[in-house]
Every structure is written in C-alpha cells, then in structure tokens.
C-alpha cells in the first residue's frame, strides 16, 4: 500500500532524505511551516500554486531543495531582495523567505532592515541557531557573548544582535519569536504570519547540537533540546525588554508575539499610489 503523508504534496519527496543532522531543529521548523501553509490553503487564503519560497545559503536555506512550490535557492544573504522583486512582479503570490540567522540577520541584515522599513508583503522565517552551522561553527552576530566557537577560541567578545528589538523599531506588521521546542506555538505564529499583509517575521529558536551544542557543552541532541526547552518562557505579548537572548543558564529566552499591527503594506501603498 502506498502510504503518503498528507503534507507530502508540499515536498519534492524524490529528494528526501534531507541533509539536516540528527537533532537539528530545522525539520520541525519546516514541518510547522507546511502545516501552517496547509491550513491557509484549506481556508482558501491562497492556493498551493500561489506559494513561492525563496532562500539564500546555509542549512536552513536548503529548505527550498525540498519545498514543492515555485522556489529559488539563491545567493548568500540575498533571499529577501529576490523575494521583494518576485512580490513586486507577482503580487498575487504568497512569498515566503526561509533562512538562518547567518543568511537573514548577518549577511542579509541590510536587506532585512529595508524590507522591514518598507513593510514589504513577505513572510520571513528566520531559524536562529546562533551559529554558522554549515560552515563549521564560526561566530555569528546572533552568537551570545562569551560562547566558544571555532573563530572565538577565547569566547565571543561581541554582544549579540537582538533581531526582535531591531525589527520592532521598523514597520513590520508581525513580529514573533517561537521555538522548535514548542511546535504548536511555532505553527500558530507561522499560521498568523501567513495571514498578514506587510512584513511578517517569525524568529525560530532552534538547537544545533552538532555545532552549537558541542561548543556550549551540550553535544547530545536530547540534552540540548531539553536545555532549550527549559529556558523557553512563553508570554502572550511579552515586552521588548525581555527579548534579549543571553543563554545564561539561569536566564529565560522569551517567546511570544512582540508586534501585531496592520499598517498599510508596501503592495497596498503601491496599489493606492499607482504603479
């Protein structure tokens, strides 16, 4: 009997198995995204053919290998500009950008900034593992202070970027942080994000046992997952003051919806002013 998973229609199943390491959180992030997409398709908000996925380079960016939508796997950090171009030419499409913190917040940081400033109609999913995973564990702008990485053998001298605080200062319509340790909340945020006009951004805290976990003393995937789970604190509408991620073992990482507004979106402004 040919048993197919109900979400298989959204996957290029001939490319499976995927490349992600055992214990990696990206799989949970992608499956949550697919469930959220499936619910929106079932509601008729958009069709399967109207979804486009764009990614840059990195572990998370490999998601477009497997997503059975019109998709583009482009250059490092430039998924957002590609997606903006696509949205401008095909405004009827639901354009989803999926990438890691290195791709979206580091090399692509400036593009993110201006996409947020313009409130471009995109769903941006940033899987944050706080490290450059694919390239072997180099420090990232999202790496918490003091952490040992392959490029910070004495510990990280730098403060981490708080992407939630950064984007909250701009014009995004939706800004949430979720964690793969709480997939039901993650799915809910992705579902909400997919229903928004303007820029909807979901940061997804995700364990990378192979590289990041090893550096912080949690090489075992289950131990790292449990550690992350114990640190996550859910608040419905947390204050921005609580959005820093320090990874102090006694400090919480707060997940929740930080911004949920309905400013006029980029495409709506273009429609109003005329092309």
């Amino acid at each position, binding site marked *: 009997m040919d048993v197919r998973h109900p979400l298989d229609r959204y996957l*290029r199943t001939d*490319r499976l198995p995927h490349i992600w390491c055992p214990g990696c959180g990206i799989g949970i992030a992608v499956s949550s995204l697919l469930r959220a997409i499936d619910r929106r398709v079932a509601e008729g908000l958009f069709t399967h*053919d*109207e979804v*486009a996925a764009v990614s840059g380079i990195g572990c998370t960016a490999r998601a*477009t*290998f497997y997503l*059975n*939508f*019109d*998709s*583009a*796997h*482009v*250059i490092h950090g*430039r998924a957002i500009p590609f997606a903006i171009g*696509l949205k401008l030419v*095909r405004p*009827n*499409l639901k354009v989803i950008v999926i990438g890691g913190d290195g791709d979206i917040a580091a090399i692509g940081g400036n593009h993110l900034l201006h996409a947020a400033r313009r409130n471009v109609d995109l769903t941006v999913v940033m899987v944050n593992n706080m490290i450059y995973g694919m390239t072997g564990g180099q420090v990232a702008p999202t790496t918490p202070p003091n952490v040992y990485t392959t490029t910070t053998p004495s510990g990280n001298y730098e403060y981490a970027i708080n992407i939630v605080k950064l984007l909250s200062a701009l014009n995004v319509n939706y800004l949430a942080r979720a964690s793969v340790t709480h997939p039901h909340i993650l799915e809910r945020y992705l579902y909400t994000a997919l229903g928004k006009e303007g820029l909807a951004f979901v940061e997804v805290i995700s364990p990378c046992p192979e590289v990041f976990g090893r550096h912080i003393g949690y090489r075992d995937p289950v131990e790292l997952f449990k550690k992350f789970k114990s640190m996550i604190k859910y608040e419905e509408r947390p204050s921005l003051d609580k959005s820093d991620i320090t990874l102090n073992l006694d400090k919480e990482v707060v997940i929740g919806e930080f911004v949920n507004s309905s400013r006029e979106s980029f495409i709506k402004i273009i429609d109003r002013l005329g092309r």
Partner: protein
Amino acid sequence: MTATSGPGFSLMVEGLSLAIMTETPLVIAYVMRAGPSTGIATKSGQYDVMQVRWAAHGNYEIVAYAPWSVQELYDLTIKSFNVSEALRVPVILLSDAALAHIWERVVIADPGEVIIINRKKPKVSKELYRPFEPEEDLVPPMACFGEGYKVLVESLTHDEKGYYKPSNEVQRKLVWRLVNKVRKNKDMLFDSASYFTEDAEYVVVAYGSTARSAYALVKDLRSSGIKIGLYRPKLLWPVDEEGLIKATYTAKKVFVVENNIGVYVNEVSRILKHREVISIPVIDIEVPTPDAIFEVMREWM
C-alpha cells in the same frame, strides 16, 4: 533591466553570477566611468571591457555590446533584450560617460517595426516540465513563478530538474551548455561596422565612443591618400573572430585604439596572431581626440 556604472557593477557581480547560473534573461546598461574605485564620477573611459567579460567567478559566456552613438544605444538596447530573452543569458550594453552625456538625433521605431523575441515557454505539461531541460538550441524553455510549474531556480550546480548534483558529469554538462548555448547561437549576436577596409594597408580597430574619434582620423588620413580603414565591433563579447579576420585581411598593420591601458588589444593579437597588432592606448577622461590618437599612431606608420 538595470543600469549602473563601475562601482555599482562591482557590487552587482554576485547577482550577475546568479543570473548566469539560473539562466535569467537580464540586460545591464553599464556606463563606464574613470576608475579604479570611485575614480572620477561623470568622466569617461573604457576600462571595464575585461571586467564585464570575467567579472563573475566560474566559466561561462556572456554577451556585451559597445554602441558608439545615441541611435546605437537605442538599437542595441532592443537587440540586447532579444538576445537575453532568446538565449537566457545576461547581456551588457557597455556605454561610457561620454556617450551618456551627449545629445543626438534618434529615430525611434514604430512599435510594429521592432522585432521582439521573447523567452521560450514550456511546451510540455506541468508534471513533465524540467526547468533546465534544454531544447536543440541548448536553451531551456522558461516557466515563470505563479504558473503552477513548481519551478526550482537553483544557484548550485544542478541537473535538468534544478536539483543540486555535485558530480563531474553534471558540472561538465552544465558548464559546457552555458558556454555552448552562446557559442552555437553566435550568428544572432554578431554586429560590426567596417569603413574603408577593402584595400586598407592599415586597419584601426576601435569600439564605443573612442571609435568616433578613430573614424574622424581615418577619414582625414584617407583624404590625404593613406590606405587606412576602421573596423568597429559592436559586439565585444563573445568576439566575432571571423569578422575581425575578414576586416583586417589586407592590412599590414592593425592598430587597436582604446581609452584605457590597452586591454581589448590582447584579444585582437590572439586572433590575428600572424599580423602586426599595435596597441594605441589613449587615456582621456572625455574622449581621446583624433589628434591625440594620431600622435601615438604616427610613429608606427
């Protein structure tokens, strides 16, 4: 289409590389200015002839045109679009600051008069479509996002489905197809002009704004009885080797006049290996004058 000059183009190169790999039709109007780096804004030069050929990493063929007048900017813009759509390749319209600032009379064609070539669309069903499966001309039909084909645009080395395949077989096949789809369709690209070359003992090779001065000089020298001609490639890349050989057939000496340190001359020397090819580099932040060119050329004549 996008438009830029050297500093902007340098920033765009990774995107150009992506366009080559993903076979995205693209026209770049590149207005050369004095460089390196910020150089002199709004001033001219022809320094970037090799940059447009080799800017991106990897191996590929790219197309570049060098217009010499406002009319040709118009005509070659149309041609650039047609070539980039037909071959799914980036085309660079290599202008310079001198051309960008001049005012000239232009004849604009009526809409019906312009030949427009659009990219090929898929002829097979959505299920059978493979985004990088070429036809006989080595160019794959192009489905767009939103049409239901589940296109995969891939920057990694990919097979016909767009799937990443890190193997010799796929890499060789892809790279050679990216190169050969341009080489095998070169007849649609070629464009050049020859003046007084039939019996010329000397042939000047010049392109773009510099060719305007070279043309004035050649006409002057002709009227004083010197058998000299001008060959002006409008297509810089890929090089029209046969056109160059034909235009310089009777020449004892070939002068390559450029507003740079002499860069395209290396291509000319390579192709005309049994001829005397002389580089005439005249750096001028406007356009080299006929006198300035002649001053350098005279000692070789």
